[in-house]
């Protein structure tokens, strides 16, 4: 895979002119030409525009006008995000003929930072799914095993970074859609705190659960992209080493349904963190059993509002599974939606309480490694679980509560499929979470540099 460098490492090479942005852009475009036919990660490739942006970046850097660590760096965008003059398909036939009239604010910030926008990536149609299988453009596939899903809904984004077709990608996360594909592909994926990054110019799934953030190769890269998307520079006041970091390890519901290899990798990661001096204590969320019904009522009700008109006029243009899930939302009663809102307040106070005595919460990201495309259930601990339910199980809570969360690779199966661990930070404190994550990152995965 060509893009073994992180954004931070590439930025140094570009700034010192050890390598040109044009050459890096060509490498990514060559990777797209070589691998996209089998991976189906991209819906649109901006080859000409990307080469022009890269050439401009080289000229500016040569002239001493260095803009920052994304200057000249190829970045892909989930195809829910508006880029002026190009289609935003949302991986749906419902969006046929659409051309964005303006850049989304996150795209404006990427352009101002000098990023090279390499293309728009495949996704689960309208982001309503965790596998990327229901797409008008066909499924995106896992770079390590094309018979498997790269996760979703930002599956084309994760595949694009892992396969070296981009150095980072911008995804969206409504129930785990940045963290699930990042974990499946061995990447770092950040869901910032709710409301920190504008979702304007992005096709919505759920008005109160949608988040925007990066998928990339390291926590440092996540911080770089986060700062650009937010338009600020991070202020790092948190610990810089693992020694003394206080972690609440979520148990009960959060470790009750885990593939044995995921459970083993997670416990080994906990042991490495203890050895490094982190202080781990078990924690729980009393009403964790209510997370799924609360999430379901919020996400489907809010999605149904956006899709009601086209479900009536163009229902057959949706993929069947996505259409059915959207139709479910149209049957939810207002009183049950309000109950879910009340449950959301309770879960938020419970996550705050669990965080009160620690720097971050720690839990696995996804209970299973990347699964085969086409399967709808998985057997865990003697019971058959729905892929959709199980993949959302550990991530959706933090969309409901809005706490920042990040997934970091913490191991792999014997077949080499990545496994992720998730850190959750205090309300509104994404920068602090990033600092904690950066301190712990070297110890979470076996064999990572220390």
């Amino acid at each position: 895979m060509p893009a073994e460098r992180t954004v931070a490492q590439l930025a140094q090479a570009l700034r010192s002119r050890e390598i040109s942005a044009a050459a890096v852009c060509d490498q990514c475009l060559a990777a797209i030409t070589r691998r996209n036919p089998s991976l189906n990660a991209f819906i649109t490739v901006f080859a000409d525009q990307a080469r022009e942006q890269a050439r401009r970046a080289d000229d500016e850097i040569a002239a001493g006008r260095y803009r920052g660590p994304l200057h000249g760096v190829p970045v892909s965008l989930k195809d829910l995000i508006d880029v002026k003059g190009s289609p935003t398909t949302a991986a749906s036939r419902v969006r046929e003929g659409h051309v964005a009239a303006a850049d989304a604010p996150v795209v404006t910030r990427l352009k101002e930072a000098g990023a090279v926008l390499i293309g728009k990536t495949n996704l689960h149609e309208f982001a309503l799914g965790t596998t990327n299988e229901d797409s008008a453009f066909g499924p995106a596939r896992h770079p390590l095993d094309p018979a498997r899903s790269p996760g979703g809904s930002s599956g084309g984004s994760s595949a694009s970074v892992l396969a070296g077709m981009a150095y980072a990608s911008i995804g969206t996360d409504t129930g785990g859609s940045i963290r699930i594909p990042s974990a499946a592909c061995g990447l770092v994926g950040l869901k910032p705190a709710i409301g920190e990054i504008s979702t304007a110019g992005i096709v919505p799934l759920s008005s109160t659960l949608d988040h925007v953030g990066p998928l990339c190769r390291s926590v440092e890269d996540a911080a770089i992209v986060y700062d650009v998307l937010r338009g600020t520079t991070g202020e790092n006041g948190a610990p810089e080493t693992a020694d003394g970091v206080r972690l609440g390890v979520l148990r009960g519901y959060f470790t009750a349904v885990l593939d044995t290899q995921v459970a083993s990798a997670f416990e080994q990661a906990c042991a490495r963190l203890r050895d490094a001096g982190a202080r781990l204590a078990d924690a729980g969320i009393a009403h964790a059993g209510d997370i799924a019904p609360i999430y379901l009522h919020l996400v489907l009700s809010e999605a149904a509002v956006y899709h009601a008109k086209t479900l009536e006029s163009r229902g057959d243009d949706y993929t069947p599974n996505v259409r059915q899930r959207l139709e479910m939302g149209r049957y939810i009663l207002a009183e049950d939606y309000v109950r879910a809102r009340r449950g959301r307040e309770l879960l938020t106070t419970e996550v705050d309480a669990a965080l009160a005595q620690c720097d971050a919460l720690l839990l696995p990201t996804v209970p299973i490694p990347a699964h085969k495309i086409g399967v709808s259930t998985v057997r865990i601990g003697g019971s058959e679980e729905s892929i959709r339910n199980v993949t959302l199980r550990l991530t959706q809570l933090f969309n409901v509560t809005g706490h920042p969360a990040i997934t970091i690779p913490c191991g792999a199966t014997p077949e080499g499929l990545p496994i992720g661990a998730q850190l959750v930070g205090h309300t509104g404190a994404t920068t602090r979470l990033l600092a904690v994550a950066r301190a712990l990152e070297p110890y979470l995965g076996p064999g990572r540099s220390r």
Partner: protein
Amino acid sequence: MTIKTWLDNAVQDAERRGLPALRPLLESLAQAASALRTADWNADATDESHGAPTEPHAG
């Protein structure tokens, strides 16, 4: 409206609209709605709390 009445109506409506495949999804939604309605954090008109959010439990 009770969950049973709601489900019966929803299934009937989905079938009328040519969406019979919705039945199992509506049944799972009924289970989820039932879980919400029976959760211990719900308030009702006899509560002392008058619907104030429940205090978080330890654990």
